[in-house]
């Protein structure tokens, strides 16, 4: 029953994040460098 009633909803409700959000994350990842010194993590962002 659940399958019957939610089939249309599943098709129509495929929501995705904005492309800008994905691009930001990929750029952020490329720019971020984390160095661990003992228990301390140092984050460095490349400009």
């Amino acid at each position, binding site marked *: 029953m659940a399958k019957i009633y939610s089939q249309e909803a599943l098709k129509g409700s495929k929501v995705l994040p904005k492309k800008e*959000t994905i691009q930001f994350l990929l750029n952020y990842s490329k720019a971020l460098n984390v160095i661990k010194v003992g228990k301390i993590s140092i984050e460095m962002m490349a400009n």
Partner: protein
Amino acid sequence: MANVQTPDALLVKNYIAGDENALSILINRHQSKIYGFIYSKLSDRDISDDIFQDTFIKVIKTLKSNSYNEEGKFLPWVMRISHNLIIDHYRRTKKMPMNRETEEFSIFSIMSDNVPNIESKLITAQVENDLRKLIEELPSEQKEVLMMRMYQDLSFKEISEMTGVSINTALGRMRYAIMNLRKVIDKHQIILTN
């Protein structure tokens, strides 16, 4: 030829080793499930985008600092992070979850659509709307399992890992959710057909 997909664990390993493309594959592979999960709890595209972004910032930082526990699976781990961030969001705003049906079934998108079977679309939206309202009436554990299974398309194994119950319990909750929906539909003679 068989479509061989690189396992998540290998992509994570490659990403930690410096392969930035591995992150792109992981995001593309799981964005629908993760964003769908967040959106189902918030019903707001902008806030969902923020939570999705914060989730992956946390993922990136954890992986880059070599703090990721390889014993766990990648998707349930990311889902747990997003789940915690959603709770933080509600704590900050001190608001209860709110359903904004107009966002999901926008009347303007229906009106501006020139597809001929507009009546069918309206009926479908109404059926979906009614069903969502019925689902909202279910006990929270049953609702959670049903939403994860039917709307986020998660397997019962993934559901059990995320909710911290056994697969049998998750299956049982799904069964009771469907039985309870049937009861309400029969009792009130609701017609859910298109």
